[in-house]
């Protein structure tokens, strides 16, 4: 058993190593069955200590065969681990009676007849002692020494994550805020990991003095609980965020979690993990290039070539409509390029040979003159499209404009 016992609120540094007051909070970990999984007691204790450090918690830590014994021992700081009951009893014997959290009157009474350590207490007659300090306390002592069973209820994780911290000094430096935010992210990742869940977004409040907090919504390309990804997005967003005032504290909240069970990777192939890796890559590219420069591809049900391509956010393309069987070019020029006409034929670095067509594509009056998402809408069309081969044997898609003033245009390449 291991016990982690942060000092209660308001306890100062002066008490370090001494007794903690009443109401000190603790966390009991049943580590007996999982020691081998974590590579032994030393490594597990080291990992717990490192996690505490990452979260900025000062805590005592003790390892003992009984939960109550570990709890009391942790109140003394970080004593050496007790691997078995005799070692635990020896350690407990040396504890001051004050570790029992007795009322001041009882403590004074015990002190008055020379009972300073638990060893002294245990030498007193049971029945008389029970009348003085209460049967409950006596039972706790017996549980600590492993003489009574000590079942404990499981710890339920809160259904909603919310954690905050106060900055040691107000700051508007992104780097300092990211550093502080790392603690919250570590806590969030732990909370998500315990629930086998991930978040696609979470909300960070930046608390200012005397004005409403700035809310910063962090979105992820896919649900995740990877602290590195969470932190990368946090840093990217904080660096671009204009702050109205210095920040005094941070509050991180997440309530919309989605199930994210662990997956087993394939033995030979990369397994199903490349979706996660791909999302991380997309996030990294977006951080530097900007959101608009990375997109997915989807087919829109539209007969006009300009309108047949949509750019959804990557990876969320809905099932496309069945593609047409007619030939369409892979590349569609951003704007049709006007071609010269020589001797009645379109000309692109030489005469174009028209191989198939015409394919009439027309109408589209419904969005004429409106502004679309990618500039002016295509509007009404009236074109005859041809598959053409250039003089240097390249395959092009050209059209002849049927509305005045007419003319030939290059619109795509059959790459």
């Amino acid at each position, binding site marked *: 058993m291991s016990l982690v016992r942060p000092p209660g609120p308001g306890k100062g540094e002066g008490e370090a190593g001494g007794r903690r007051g009443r109401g000190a909070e603790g966390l009991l970990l049943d580590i007996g069955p999982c020691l081998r999984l974590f590579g032994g007691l030393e490594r597990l204790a080291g990992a717990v200590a490192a996690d505490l450090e990452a979260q900025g918690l000062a805590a005592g830590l003790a390892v003992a065969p009984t939960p109550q014994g570990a709890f009391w021992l942790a109140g003394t700081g970080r004593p050496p681990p007790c691997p078995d009951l005799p070692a635990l009893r020896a350690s407990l014997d040396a504890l001051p009676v004050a570790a029992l959290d007795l009322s001041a009157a009882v403590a004074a009474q015990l002190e008055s007849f020379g009972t300073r350590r638990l060893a002294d207490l245990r030498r007193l007659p049971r029945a008389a002692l029970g009348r003085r300090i209460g049967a409950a306390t006596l039972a706790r002592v017996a549980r600590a020494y492993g003489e009574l069973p000590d079942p404990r209820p499981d710890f339920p994780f809160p259904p909603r994550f919310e954690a905050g911290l106060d900055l040691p000094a107000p700051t508007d430096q992104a780097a300092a805020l990211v550093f502080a935010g790392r603690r919250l992210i570590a806590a969030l990742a732990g909370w998500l990991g315990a629930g086998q869940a991930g978040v696609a977004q979470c909300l960070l409040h930046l608390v200012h003095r005397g004005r409403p907090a700035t809310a910063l919504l962090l979105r992820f390309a896919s649900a995740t609980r990877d602290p590195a990804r969470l932190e990368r997005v946090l840093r990217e967003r904080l660096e671009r965020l204009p702050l109205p005032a210095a920040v005094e504290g941070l509050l991180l909240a997440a309530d919309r979690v989605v199930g994210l069970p662990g997956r087993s990777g394939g033995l030979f192939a990369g397994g199903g993990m490349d979706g996660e890796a791909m999302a991380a890559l997309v996030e990294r590219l977006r951080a530097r290039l900007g959101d608009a420069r990375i997109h997915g*591809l989807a087919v829109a049900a539209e007969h006009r070539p300009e309108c047949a*391509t949509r750019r959804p956010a990557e990876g969320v393309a809905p099932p496309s409509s069945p593609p047409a069987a007619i030939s369409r*070019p892979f590349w569609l020029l951003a704007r049709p390029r006007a071609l010269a006409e020589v001797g009645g034929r379109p000309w692109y670095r030489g005469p174009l040979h*028209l*191989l198939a067509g015409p394919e009439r594509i027309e109408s589209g009056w419904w969005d004429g003159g409106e502004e679309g998402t990618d500039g002016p809408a295509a509007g009404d069309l009236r074109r005859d499209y041809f598959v053409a081969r250039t003089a240097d044997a390249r395959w092009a898609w050209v059209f002849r404009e049927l509305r005045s003033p007419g003319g030939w245009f290059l619109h795509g390449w059959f790459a």
Partner: protein
Amino acid sequence: MNPQLSAFLDRRPDVWRGDRFAGAPLPAVASGHAVLDRELPGGGWPRGALTEILMDGQGLGEMTLLLPALVRLREEGGWTLLVAPPHPLHAPAWAAAGVDLARLVVVSPAPGGDALWALEQALASGAPAAVVAWSATADARAVRRLQVAAAAGRGLAFLFRPARAAAEASAAPLRLLLAAGEAGDLAVDILKRRGPPPAAPLCLALPRPVRRHAHGQPLAGAALRGPAATRPLRPAATRPVHPVA
């Protein structure tokens, strides 16, 4: 060579012989063109290595050349990433060719910007099953960096460069020069591969938008006259396509 020695060496894939293809450390992805596969070490596009494709302009059938491999990746559920394509993509053509659009990501950095950086990130991450990139500015040093990044992953990596780069040394283990061949074919000249020096350029008959026998007979007459005389081959104009529920 002594037949006994030859037989012995045949049993040792870790010994490379100058007249054979080097054994590829990762299984190659068949290109889907039997003529080409015969000439590629491992019988296809190499995984975990940069493949340079040199050509000028577009429209020779360069994507049609790569498509069978990209479609094969769809069966494996892998992602395809396009970096700095020369023109916007026309989604219906890609969907019709069998590419899984839901697993296609297009990166279009600002001109002259971070295309090589993005490409290196993508290769080093190992996340996409195939990366296809275009760069006119990559030099020998950049290509070396990209090859190192590609070697860390196990995906396909294609880099399109201008044909003039054929004269430069390159760290890419496979280099192809594309040109227009006879009768609409694609001429593929293997400039460099792991194995014996390649012979004459290959001629690949790729599926093109028009059947082969039509190549020699350009449209003429009515189709080329003014709008008034136009009589489309299809009686009705292309109507809006409605999605099937």
